[in-house]
């Protein structure tokens, strides 16, 4: 189901956090939402999930208007999310964290839980089976009975994704899933995101600073700055967009101009390659080719100039800091 934002605006007092943002996330795509700190990316997530209500515009999942729905109802409608600052249920065990997300398709009523009827036990065991299966997918099954706070930072992030997946979502919103991950872990995350999309038939929207992940996995990218749309396109178009470069790196009168013209020349050929790679073969092949393509692109990017690699470094640095903070 498509997730559509139309002219969405959100003000906090006099501050316009999100201004007139419109985009459509196509069904079963992997969609990136990027921008410098404070650009309003997380606010967009909070608007979609109902934590905040937008002042103007509309947000639709398929044909369902999300404006009147409460956060819990939006979750039921099929939008699951993770949080930038991990929000697990600390006092609960790992598996309990997942089981909480089963409340919505629980059959046993409160009374039958108190009476411990057959329905209650059947419910519990089927929910546990599903939770354990998902924990297995995220390689967390061995930690099922541990308190969730005892997990390492990376595992906590994965547990949050697993918890979101318990909702059987149609759309999964990931808020900086790669924060605090090193190069190898981020590569793993890329694979996991693609695998999730292909296996569970869902749409993924990604807010992320780590360009290795964003450029590697997203099929379409929307760029915000100061709450407004500054660019939209494929990873290659975004990589070379002058407005994006200016937002991330600051404007340099002549430097930006030359880079942009350089990039414009290169862009079409890169795009052509991508298209040809997409044509043949089955889904699995496509994913793997894309992965290779992405890493090749990464090299290309670093070769392109100091600025690009500086951008990556910035992302890494941020990730590193987040990691330190949590440990």
């Amino acid at each position, binding site marked *: 189901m498509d997730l559509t934002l139309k002219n969405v605006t959100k003000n906090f007092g006099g501050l316009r956090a999100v201004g007139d943002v419109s985009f459509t996330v196509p069904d079963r795509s992997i969609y990136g939402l990027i921008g410098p700190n404070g650009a309003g990316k997380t606010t967009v997530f909070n608007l979609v999930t109902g934590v905040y209500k937008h002042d103007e515009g509309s947000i639709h999942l398929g044909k369902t208007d999300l404006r009147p729905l409460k956060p*819990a109802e939006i979750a039921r409608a099929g939008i699951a999310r993770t949080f930038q600052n991990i929000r697990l249920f600390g006092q*609960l065990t790992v598996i309990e964290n997942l089981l909480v*997300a089963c409340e919505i398709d629980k059959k046993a009523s409160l009374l039958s839980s108190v009476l411990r009827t057959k329905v209650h036990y059947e419910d519990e065991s089927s929910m546990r089976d599903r939770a354990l299966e998902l*924990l297995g997918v995220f390689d967390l099954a061995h930690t099922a009975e541990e308190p969730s706070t005892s997990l390492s930072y990376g595992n906590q992030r994965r547990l949050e994704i697993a918890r979101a997946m318990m909702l059987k979502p149609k759309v999964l919103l990931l808020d900086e899933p790669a924060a605090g991950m090193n190069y190898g872990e981020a590569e793993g995350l890329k694979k996991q995101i693609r695998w999730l999309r292909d296996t569970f038939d869902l749409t993924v929207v990604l807010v992320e600073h780590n360009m290795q992940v964003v450029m590697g996995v997203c099929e379409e990218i929307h760029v915000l700055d100061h709450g407004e749309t500054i660019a939209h396109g494929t990873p290659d178009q975004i990589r070379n967009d002058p407005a994006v470069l200016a937002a991330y790196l600051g404007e340099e009168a002549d430097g930006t101009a030359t880079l942009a013209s350089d990039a414009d020349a290169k862009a079409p050929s890169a795009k052509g390659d991508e298209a040809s790679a997409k044509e043949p073969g089955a889904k699995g092949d496509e994913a793997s080719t894309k992965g290779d393509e992405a890493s090749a692109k990464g090299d290309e990017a670093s070769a392109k100039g100091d600025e690009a690699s500086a951008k990556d470094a910035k992302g890494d640095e941020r990730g590193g800091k987040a990691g330190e903070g949590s440990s």
Partner: protein
Amino acid sequence: MAGAQAGSTRPMGSGLLKQIALFGGGLLVALLLDFTLDKAISDSSIRQLLMMAACNILVALSLNVINGMAGQFSIGHAGFLGLGGYSAAVVSANLHEALGGGEATFGKSFIVVPVSLLVAALLSGIAGLFVGLPSLRLKGDYLAIVTLGFSEIFRLVIATAQIGDKETIAHAWSSAGSPRGFVHAISVMITSLGGQNGYAGPKDAGVPLYAGPFWVVGLAFVLGVVAWRLKFSGWGRALRALREDEIAAAAVGVDPTRYKVTSFVISAVGAGIAGGLMAMNRDGTPIVQPDSYNFQASFDAITMVILGGSGSVTGAAIGGVFVTFTVKAIELLQSTSAVQALKQRFESLDLNALRMIIYAAVLIALMIVRPEGLLGERELFQKKAPSPAKAK
């Protein structure tokens, strides 16, 4: 740490048989107690203490739902206890009259106690709903003030009613056509509760004390099992998740509104039953007074929950017993010869104040040794959850 899931994943099978054995066994023990307690323990003050402990278990269990599991800080539990106590007293006294008065027999208790407790639970539950509604918007200290306000308003409305007016309730209602008459009729009803002096039945003959050990111990057991099962069900899990992080809970489909309000109602219903049992307690006093439901009573309830371990069902039960016995032990200490000699030496010594100091010292010491309470959120008798491999 492992196994917060205990009790919820037992294999199916002879479920019904197990249930009958569990509840039947518990009630049978309570029944035996009812007939033997008087003979086994001749000292009525000790009997009273044991019954009080059982009642306090219920007080702690009910408060634990809202303060421990839901993480909402209520300091007005006495209001629900009082509402339950007064309703049960009024209903049981009138029902007793209707049944012809006389001795409060065990047989008649099967009519009086269930009806009284049902009314107590219902009224308390409704009050819980109304106090629970502001909890949707308020948190922490602000919610605490609302709950405290509720309990103090309840107590003061009764305590400050002008008594001496001998108008009957029936007469007052007969002229209750106008709004003014309606308010008058309500105030006559409140007045009939005896104001500061307390309520002792419609003819001041005393509240009939129907709740023997069978009812008190039996209900403590049954509701203890219910509290345990609530905690280890999807509902309890969602409630604890809500306590940990409301936004994240909502993001996985747990509706905070529904869970908070139901937790308030369930807690109030439990308190109503506990208050009702205390009012009808066979070894208690045949009168309910507003002062039994002052802030001190709310505070004692909080102490029980925190001492036992916030969120722990068995912890709350232990806390209830512990507080009951500690208070009693300090009272006993007062009458020892050494303390009495001290009192004679220093005339101005206030023994009641001394009691509070010792009580406070015990609490402080416990909080230093075990800041998370005796059990934390863990449970006694918790089965280890099946290992993941086995569960698969």
